[in-house]
């Protein structure tokens, strides 16, 4: 099989071929490393490629197979890891200059689980600095291009992870989703991304942006691949107090079930109107129609407080990040600026943070500092937490009458690099539809539902399920994916330019 064939396989197919001895894990890894070599100069999905580590991991899989050992369902499959998870002895920058060159002395739980499952970690992917952004333009190390159109953003913050999938540099990737950072890039790149229920995937070793919203999750080119990865990384972790101590739902079984007959699907009324691109709404409406054709019962539901989710998010996330990022003070690790023997620790901290943080990070740190200040706390942070309660109630009410909710993932397709960089509010609108699930903690997925007619760029369909019902996402997503591919005659990504 040629290198390009190997990079076009799904993760499930790749694992099956490695397990069956048709191809070695080393060959698969070599093929992906070659692809990265060939296209990453253009895409810039990776901040760091661990060639040696990846090949060594692949060889271990091959040795295991030769010894006749049982291989896990994703053994030998390459993966692109968002540069927000610590990797022992391998750089972890979170897209920030302040952590440039830092080699963590420990592995994140997600990193450890991937290694234990014999998944081959190729390297670390680009992201908006500290996961703050919707375009990956806030990376201190330059933007990532969208493989569909390199002049456009791949979404964010996990643009590197999604772009690596769309550019066939890896069949699997890991992202994190605080306000849509897995789902929105998936939508922008025509890939699949899942934000699991809050607490399903351990946050230990995942550099915190907003602790009560952050959630790691799987990114893939197919729903089944995402499910396989989901079951590898999810599960209780005693190192994360906010980890859910319950069995992981059977997401792989659900992805194989791929059947929506009899399911009740709610269309969120509030997610349309001004600001929503026509082609996005057209593809969304077609998806709803498709669900009906597949046997789902579709109803419209109203979640009025969802319109306040964005403001609540832009108070809660900055508040938590202002505190989470305080540790970057030039004392114990990372960048140190201005320590010339005359300056105090406080001065060195301030100079370092000034130089080490990009404008979006500074903006949010200051916004959060403001929102938590005495005198403002109740009006801002306090009120935002009340909105959070109301959004949770909106979801609970909706899920009384429907099994899942659907909406566009993002109001528009991928916008040109540079278009919104100086207009934070416009940038924030990109996450309008994804944020409510972070505030309430429930599960959501984005999967491709076609190309917008006006620009030929991918559109994402968002499916939202109640907390701990992540399996529903896969059941519905796999059904929609199969039906669309039957209609198109091929996976959507085949229409992407070859780079």
């Amino acid at each position, binding site marked *: 099989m040629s290198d390009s064939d190997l990079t076009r396989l799904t993760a499930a197919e790749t694992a099956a071929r490695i397990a069956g001895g048709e191809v070695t894990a080393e060959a698969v890894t070599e093929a992906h490393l070659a692809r990265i070599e060939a296209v990453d100069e253009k895409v810039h999905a990776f901040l760091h490629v661990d060639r040696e580590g990846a090949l060594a991991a692949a060889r271990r899989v091959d040795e295991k197979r030769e010894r006749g050992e049982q291989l896990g369902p994703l053994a030998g499959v390459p993966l692109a890891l968002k540069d927000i998870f610590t990797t022992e002895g391998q750089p972890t920058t979170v897209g920030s200059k302040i952590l440039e060159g830092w080699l963590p002395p420990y592995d994140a739980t997600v990193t450890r689980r991937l290694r234990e499952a014999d998944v081959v970690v190729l390297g670390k992917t680009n992201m908006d600095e500290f996961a703050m952004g919707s375009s990956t333009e806030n990376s201190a190390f330059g933007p990532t291009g969208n493989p569909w159109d390199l002049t456009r953003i791949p979404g964010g913050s996990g643009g590197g992870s999604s772009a690596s999938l769309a550019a066939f540099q890896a069949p699997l990737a890991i992202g994190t989703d605080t306000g849509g950072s897995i789902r929105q890039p998936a939508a922008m790149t025509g890939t699949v991304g899942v934000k699991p229920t809050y607490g399903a995937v351990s946050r*230990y070793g995942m550099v915190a942006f907003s602790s009560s919203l952050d959630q790691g999750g799987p990114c893939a080119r197919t729903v089944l691949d995402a499910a396989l990865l989901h079951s590898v990384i999810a599960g209780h972790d005693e190192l994360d*107090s906010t980890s859910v101590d319950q069995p992981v739902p059977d997401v792989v079984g659900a992805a194989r079930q791929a059947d929506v007959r009899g399911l009740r699907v709610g269309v969120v009324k509030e997610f349309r109107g001004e600001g929503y691109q026509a082609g996005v709404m057209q593809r969304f409406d077609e998806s709803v129609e498709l669900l009906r054709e597949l046997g789902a019962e579709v109803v419209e539901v109203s979640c009025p407080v969802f319109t306040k989710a964005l403001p609540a998010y832009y108070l809660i996330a900055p508040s938590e990040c202002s505190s989470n990022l305080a540790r970057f003070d030039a004392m114990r690790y990372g960048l140190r600026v201005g320590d010339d023997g005359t300056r105090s620790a406080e001065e060195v901290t301030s100079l370092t943070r000034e130089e080490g943080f990009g404008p979006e990070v500074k903006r949010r740190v200051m916004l959060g500092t403001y929102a938590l200040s005495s005198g403002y706390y109740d009006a801002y942070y306090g009120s935002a937490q009340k909105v959070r309660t109301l959004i949770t109630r909106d979801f609970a009410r909706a899920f009384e009458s429907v099994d899942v909710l659907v909406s566009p993932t993002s109001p528009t397709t991928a916008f040109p690099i540079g278009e919104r960089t100086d207009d934070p509010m416009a940038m924030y609108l990109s996450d309008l539809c994804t944020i409510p699930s972070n505030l309430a903690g429930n599960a959501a997925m984005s999967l491709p539902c076609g190309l917008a007619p006006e620009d030929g760029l991918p559109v994402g369909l968002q499916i939202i399920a109640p907390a701990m019902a992540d399996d529903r996402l896969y059941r519905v997503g796999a059904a929609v994916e199969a039906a669309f591919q039957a209609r198109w005659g091929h996976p959507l990504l085949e229409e992407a330019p070859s780079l």
Partner: protein
Amino acid sequence: MTVTELVSYEDALAGYDPVMGLEVHVELGTRTKMFCGCSTALGAEPNTQTCPTCLGLPGSLPVVNATGVESAIRIGLALNCEIAEWCRFARKNYFYPDMPKNFQTSQYDEPIAHDGFLDVQLEDGEVFRVGIERAHMEEDTGKSTHVGGATGRIHGASHSLLDYNRAGIPLIEIVTKPIEGAGPRAPEVARAYVAELRELIRALGVSEARMEMGQMRCDVNLSLRPHGSTVFGTRSETKNVNSLRSVERAARFEIQRHAAVLDDGGAIVQETRHFHEEDGSTTSGRVKEEAEDYRYFPEPDLVPVAPSREWVEKLRAELPELPRVRRNRLREEWGISEHEMQSVLNAGAVGLIVATIDAGAPADQARKWWMGELARRANETGAELDDLPITPEQVARLCALVAEGSLNDKLARQTIEGVLAGEGSPDEVVEKRGLKVVSDEGALGTAVDEAIAGNPDVAEKIRGGKVAAAGALVGAVMKATRGQADAARVRELILEKLGVQG
């Protein structure tokens, strides 16, 4: 900094009423830190007891130590507090290099224990009730060493070195309600409160609460107001006072200093102050220009603590005999007055005396040595009793030597001096210094004969029936034996030799 002439204590109290608030931090004696599994063992090499969590490395997360919570609840119960049914941790945000995350994981408006009291007994036996506002859980900071300054102090240092072994060790902060109405006895109340609290913490077994090792530290907040006023004056906060004696002195000094400032028509500056052991004074620390804005908010990396009522009641039922109850029992066993018992407590001697008795000494002897000679020596050097380099077992041995007649009181005091000077155990000191009572009847007999021969007129008086005159001869013998004789036996011998009935 302006130096203010202090007002005499009496004058200060003539004009003003002190109001105090005491904040005590207790380091728990758990095996591991509050939010990670790093050991808390003392004396480790720098930065050997750290992990991603207590170093605040990116990505690390806290997990609550169950024993830390249990200890907090037990302290709360022993302080007669309500135990919260549901409470959260909160982040206290401020930058400081000894705090790895630049926020302290603490509790804010939802402390685990609140609204209790602690009764403390003063020297005169009066019981003073100190209200407890709250007791909450938090974590300690790392330790900084300042390098390049003249005295190792922070000012003038060129840089600092940080060891995070202590960072994350569980702390319980216990805050009193404003202590009003103590009048001139405010400093005594402060000391008695901290002493009582320390006894309580030790009785619970949650910490050794050794103040000299920083395991228990007290902040003394103090303000004055004119007699009759109900409004609190501006307070000063004297930080990290680390002995019982210092707590009392700090309160006393601040009363005199505040009075001087107020008498001068000045205003008290709200500031932190540092206490100086050498002269008992305080000096200005950091002036709080604007109220510190810690931007507290609920810690999102931790879930709420909701102790079940079953658990709380179980812990309540398992509380050990509390110090005041225990002291009343001991007081009866020892047959002493409340006043005497209070002195024992204030001297921090209860545990030491009990341990000495457990080592075999009679109660009155154990108490006599700790409260007498040893207390005097501790006071001389400004040390706490349990800092003295002598163990209860050694004191018990001393008592035994006295009881068997090997030592008299004077020699016993010399033996103590030797032990404290590091010359070894009581037996070794006796041996090395040759302190044994002269009990050799032959040697003693010779000394008595010589005394009689040297003082014929006194001997004649005794023979004539003036037995009281024997004292002079006893003195001569004692002098001749350099005090190493048993005075009672010497007297017996003298009377025997002179053929007089004693």
